[in-house]
């Protein structure tokens, strides 16, 4: 029982990541109809917003300390972050410590800007082009973004720890009446899950309770006619794209503390996020979220010893296997809308 609960919890946080990435992707891919291979790169850029902010906060001046030596035996340069000298060591340390959550504020305008620039500068010209062209151009863009990040930050992962107060783990099992140590869970993963719920809720209500979603859907089906009805569909597409980029970026910011960001983390998630969106069904936001959580939980269960001994290698293929089964039994994924990218 506790083992099952534990795997569900694990699935939830993996699922949160899948759902968030897929949510951003489905806004662009399922709704705007652009096969965006740069989505992973947006996620990655989000994570690197956190890295950058952390680096900015840690910008330091150097004082040479003659009493210590570096690896070559030269006097050691001791670094003190400016933040600490400005705000005092304590507050400064707190600011550095909280750099990941603070990065959310930092990332929102950046990601909106990135989304805006990307849509206006590039994607705008590709709505009417074949999907294949969209793949080529966004893939090219993804490579470029990735290489730029690699140029500045290197290929190695960079730790972006959560604030001390939110690091470490809690024993949920005790609270639920299980043995101690039965269900240990990292705090940040709970935070991530809650964050995902908030973002998903926010995006849903924006699209569900306003006409925005309907207009964009209509615009995707027939831009010209929507234009003839006096609606500036371009602007709405841009906004939609900005939101999608922001969602992807925020997913990235918050993901940093779970696993240290590196320049190719976006590519690692790319294929998976497409699978999630399609399994959820093209054009369906709830579908993408549902599929994200579903695949996360199933993956979690498939990686239990019980599963891998019963079916060797099941953890390697579970996602794809489920995708195949879903797509063969439900023609448009879990909740897909008719006519979206079916031909």
């Amino acid at each position, binding site marked *: 029982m506790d083992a099952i609960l534990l795997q569900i919890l694990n699935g939830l946080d993996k699922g949160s990541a899948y759902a968030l990435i897929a949510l951003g992707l489905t806004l662009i891919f399922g709704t705007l109809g652009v096969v965006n291979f740069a989505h992973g790169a947006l996620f990655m850029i989000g994570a690197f917003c956190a890295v950058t902010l952390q680096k900015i906060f840690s910008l330091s001046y150097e004082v040479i300390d003659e009493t210590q030596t570096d690896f070559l035996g030269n006097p050691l340069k001791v670094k003190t972050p400016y933040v600490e000298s400005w705000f005092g060591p304590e507050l400064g340390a707190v600011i550095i410590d909280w750099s990941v959550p603070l990065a959310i504020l930092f990332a929102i305008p950046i990601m909106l800007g990135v989304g805006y620039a990307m849509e206006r500068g590039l994607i705008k010209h590709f709505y009417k082009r074949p999907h294949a062209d969209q793949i080529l151009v966004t893939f090219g863009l993804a490579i470029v973004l990735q290489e730029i990040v690699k140029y500045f930050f290197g290929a190695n992962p960079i730790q972006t720890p959560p604030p001390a107060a939110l690091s470490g783990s809690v024993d949920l099992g005790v609270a639920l009446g299980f043995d101690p140590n039965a269900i240990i869970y990292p705090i940040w993963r709970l935070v991530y899950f809650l964050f995902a719920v908030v973002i998903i809720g926010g995006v849903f209500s924006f699209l569900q309770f306003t006409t925005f979603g309907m207009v964009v859907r209509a615009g995707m089906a027939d831009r010209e006619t929507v234009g003839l009805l006096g609606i500036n569909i371009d602007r709405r597409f841009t906004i939609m794209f900005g939101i999608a980029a922001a969602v992807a970026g925020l997913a990235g910011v918050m993901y940093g503390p779970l696993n240290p960001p590196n320049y190719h983390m976006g590519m690692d998630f790319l294929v998976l996020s497409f699978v999630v969106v399609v399994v959820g069904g093209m054009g369906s936001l709830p579908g993408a979220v549902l599929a994200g959580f579903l695949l996360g939980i199933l993956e979690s269960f498939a990686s239990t010893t019980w599963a891998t001994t019963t079916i060797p290698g099941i953890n390697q293929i579970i996602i794809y296997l489920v995708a195949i089964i879903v797509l063969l039994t439900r023609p448009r994924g879990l909740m897909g809308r008719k006519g979206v990218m*079916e031909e």
Partner: protein
Amino acid sequence: MLGLNKKDTSLLIIVALLTLLAPFILNPFPADSAMAQFNAGYPDLMQRFVIFGIFAIGFNILFGLTGYLSFGHAAFLGIGSYSAVWMFKLLSYNVIPAIALSIVIAGLFSLLIGYVSLRRSGIYFSILTLAFAQMSFALAYSVLSNPKFNLTNGETGLQVYADDPQIFHREGLPDLPHLFGLSMRSTYTLDVGAWSFDFNAGYYLCAVVMMIVFYLAIRIFRSPFGIMLRAVKSNQQRMNYTGLNSRPYTLAAFVISGMYAGLAGGLMAAMDPLAGAERMQWTASGEVVLMTILGGTGTLIGPVLGAGFIKYFENIFSKINDSVLHGWFAFLPDGMEDFVVAVLHPFVGKGWHLTLGILFMLVVIFLPGGLVEGGQRLINWIRGKRSGETDKPSGKTEPAE
């Protein structure tokens, strides 16, 4: 000639000349000049051009004609390679049975995967093929290489070991893939002054095979079957109400392109007897998609150009390092030289991906029809015409607004 019209015959002849003379064409720079870095006329890369050309031609039969975008074709390439190496292990290093088997096995797999995946269309089809290929990759990479049942030899890659049966292997035959004794590695090098040209047996085998399959592709494009495939892309509904069952058409195209992929995989193993699982990964499937689009989807020669383009970057640009750059710009004053090298540095060597990414974007933005359109524009421009549409449907190939 050969049942082709004039235009196609001349295309075929041009392709034949280009492939047969590739050792000259690809090595335009003297062997020890600074520009020799850009020479691509060495056996391995020439083989790769042609093999990936075959892969892309086949892919284009499916994608270019029917519009079904498979994201898992690398699986068939990988399966072809594994089959070929198994033939080497069991029978002998002769490439004929190996290549034959790789085509057959890839055909069977594509029949199976195609039959299932083609129940869906559009993006749903793409993801199904992707899922099958990723599963094959995962299985090959780890599950099927466990010590008890080692079919693929996992990460290391399937290769021939001295204790393999090789029942038809005889003394005197090369210990490497060969065609009835002619080793695929044997190369004749022709030195003309400062130039040096390699004529490699393996390359010419691949080249001949490519010419044959290119010819077949032309025939398919020009056949009633080809029109039916384009009809599938255009309007399946109309097709069904015209008394045509679109499913067998798409399946046939899928299997044909799967067999092309298997052939490419078999040739790859024949040139270099090792089959690794990475060639089945999604990135490999993605690569052939990129090759096709980059070259020009639905055109005959485009995929080959796209394949050459990407492989050229992967193999030539990645090898330009700073010391090569310094070598080129040594004539500049020191400060200038360092500056130029510093500017170029991010784009070459380990930065080759960056250059490739930028070129992808430039091509697709400015040449919506791929490299082929670039070629057409060039020809038109040379002929002094105005650039742009020639015989293309309007609206479809309009440059981005």
